[in-house]
């Protein structure tokens, strides 16, 4: 119900009047449970205090200089490149995966779903070890890939992307899977009765309808990739310019150059915050 003139007449006055009063006049008299308020305040403190610390200790004067130092610039660039590539790879692999789980009757698709979401709860370090055992030189597939195609993944930039994809993919699969599940198949069925084959149904109907979830899922996957540390350092190592992403650079700089660590951290915080805010706009403006 909108609030413009004519529509207001439709609202029965007795129902509209008291609601307005609770929203404005009586607010001061409302009581909130002290326990909830205290715990909520503590929650805010846990999140805000570290951020405040970062901002307070930030070397504002030398920020630009620190960030443009060659090593840091490399880490920044590598992080951006790897996380964006990871997000794209996640979309390319995750959407079909979620589709198979939700739209086919293949046996074992439930198990598949459980498996793809496993990395969410798995410690990233364990993921890194597992990746080494699969794609390392001595691993299940690593030797074969290197001998046959000359592809080396462990301790390379593609390895960073693989590690990040491993931990980020579940976020996208969960987002798409949820969107497909909540959308009934009525429109897809309608498309079929109009002569659309399975691919056209997916491309012209399913995909446009889940677009908001696709964007949200891709952003989540990207954010997870940007912050990835454990699996990356285990599987891809910590080589500046090749596999040393921002989080790894922050960790290294803590020992040698705390100011640079704070500066890099600030950039990560700023970027994450910007994306979160942008996404909220996106969602409120979505279909």
């Amino acid at each position, binding site marked *: 119900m909108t609030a413009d003139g004519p529509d207001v007449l439709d609202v029965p006055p007795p129902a509209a009047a008291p609601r307005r009063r609770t929203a404005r006049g009586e607010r001061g008299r409302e009581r909130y449970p002290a326990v909830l308020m205290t715990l909520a305040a503590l929650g805010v403190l846990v999140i805000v205090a570290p951020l405040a610390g970062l901002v307070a200790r930030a070397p504002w004067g030398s920020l630009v200089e620190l960030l443009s130092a060659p090593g840091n610039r490399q880490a920044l660039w590598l992080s951006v490149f790897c996380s964006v590539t990871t997000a794209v790879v996640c979309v390319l692999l995750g959407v079909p995966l979620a589709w198979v789980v939700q739209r086919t009757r293949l046996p074992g698709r439930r198990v598949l779903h459980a498996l793809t979401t496993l990395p969410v709860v798995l410690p990233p370090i364990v993921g890194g070890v597992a990746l080494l055992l699969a794609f390392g030189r001595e691993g299940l597939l690593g030797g074969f890939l290197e001998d046959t195609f000359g592809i080396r993944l462990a301790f390379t930039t593609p390895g960073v992307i693989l590690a990040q994809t491993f931990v980020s993919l579940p976020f996208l699969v969960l987002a798409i899977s949820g969107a497909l599940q909540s959308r009934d198949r*009525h*429109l897809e*069925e*309608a*498309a*079929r*009765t*109009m*002569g*659309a*084959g399975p691919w*056209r149904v997916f491309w*012209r*109907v399913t995909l*446009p*309808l889940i*677009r908001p979830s696709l964007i949200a899922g891709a952003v989540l996957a990207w954010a997870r990739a940007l912050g990835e540390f454990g699996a990356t350092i285990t599987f891809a190592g910590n080589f500046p310019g090749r596999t040393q992403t921002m989080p790894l650079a922050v960790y290294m700089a803590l020992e040698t150059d705390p100011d640079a660590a704070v500066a890099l951290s600030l950039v990560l915080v700023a970027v994450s915050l910007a994306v979160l805010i942008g996404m909220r706009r996106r969602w409120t403006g979505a*279909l």
Partner: protein
Amino acid sequence: MTLSAHVVVDRGTFTLDASLRAESGDTVAVIGPNGAGKTTLLRALAGLLPLTGGHLVLGGHTLDRPGTGEFVRPEERPVGVVFQDLRLFPHLTALDNVAFALRCRGRKRKDARAAATAWLARLGLADKARSRPRHLSGGQAQRVALARALAPSPRLLLLDEPLSALDTSLRADVRHDLAGALAAFDGVRLIITHDPTEALTLADHLVILENGRVIQTGTPMEITARPRSEYVARFVGANLLRGHADGDHITLTGGLRLATAHPTSGDAYALIRPQAVSLHLDPPHGSPRNVWQGRIRDLSLTGHTARVTVEAKPSIVAEITPAAIGELGLSPGTPVWMSVKATDITTYPA
């Protein structure tokens, strides 16, 4: 072009087993209570639900025959569907919704858009071509859905409760438009409905489905004249009583004996139009021989008449003028006498 179908769909707890036959130009209305299998039938004809038995042949082409393993996928059937909830694509404009159907059938983009524009214009929606479905009124959305189903020139058009999503006030108009659009379509039309007006005005053949079985078929006139189940009787707005006839009398299941001017014998139905039932506060005297007593259960006004449900043996619906309600002082619980002339009781073998 003939539709010949024996649709058998076994869904465990429910089995649909219905035969249908229709020619090009026929409009068949499938009527039945909720859960009768109407939607299952529509889905089977569209190919969204495979048959488990029987066959489905349209214009000489087998679309589904489990016995031989033949099955034509829904996207390859010359069938257009207007769903009850319309199912317009929310992300496409009215024009693109219609063009989508044409593109699917292999038309080039430009060609498809031109044809879609023509279809929308034909249904009076030229100015709504660029609107998204959520900006269309119920009646407009309904016409877009119809254009979308008709544009690729299907051989079989399926309409699922085509007017149920509309306000009652709009239905008469849209029904008129629908009748016009259907008249121009030369394939087989099949309408699923539970609205008597829709069925009786749009269709030339009725199929009554109950519990997954066809219990009666015929022209609207045949069905109205001789309904063969309580559901159909209610559908056409008549009282249907069951009993045993011996010549010009019928003894109802409840024991009441009625005189009829249509002699028959054996198990029989007695059909009484609500308008033929007279209500009295005192036992009536004079010509009517069929008189029994009961109490009013319910009163409702429909248009210029009042329908009165009387709890009795047998219970019956009477149609009287709203003025008569006031004159007789009728309200739920009022004891009344009912009388029906023998000439107003139609009997026919069950």
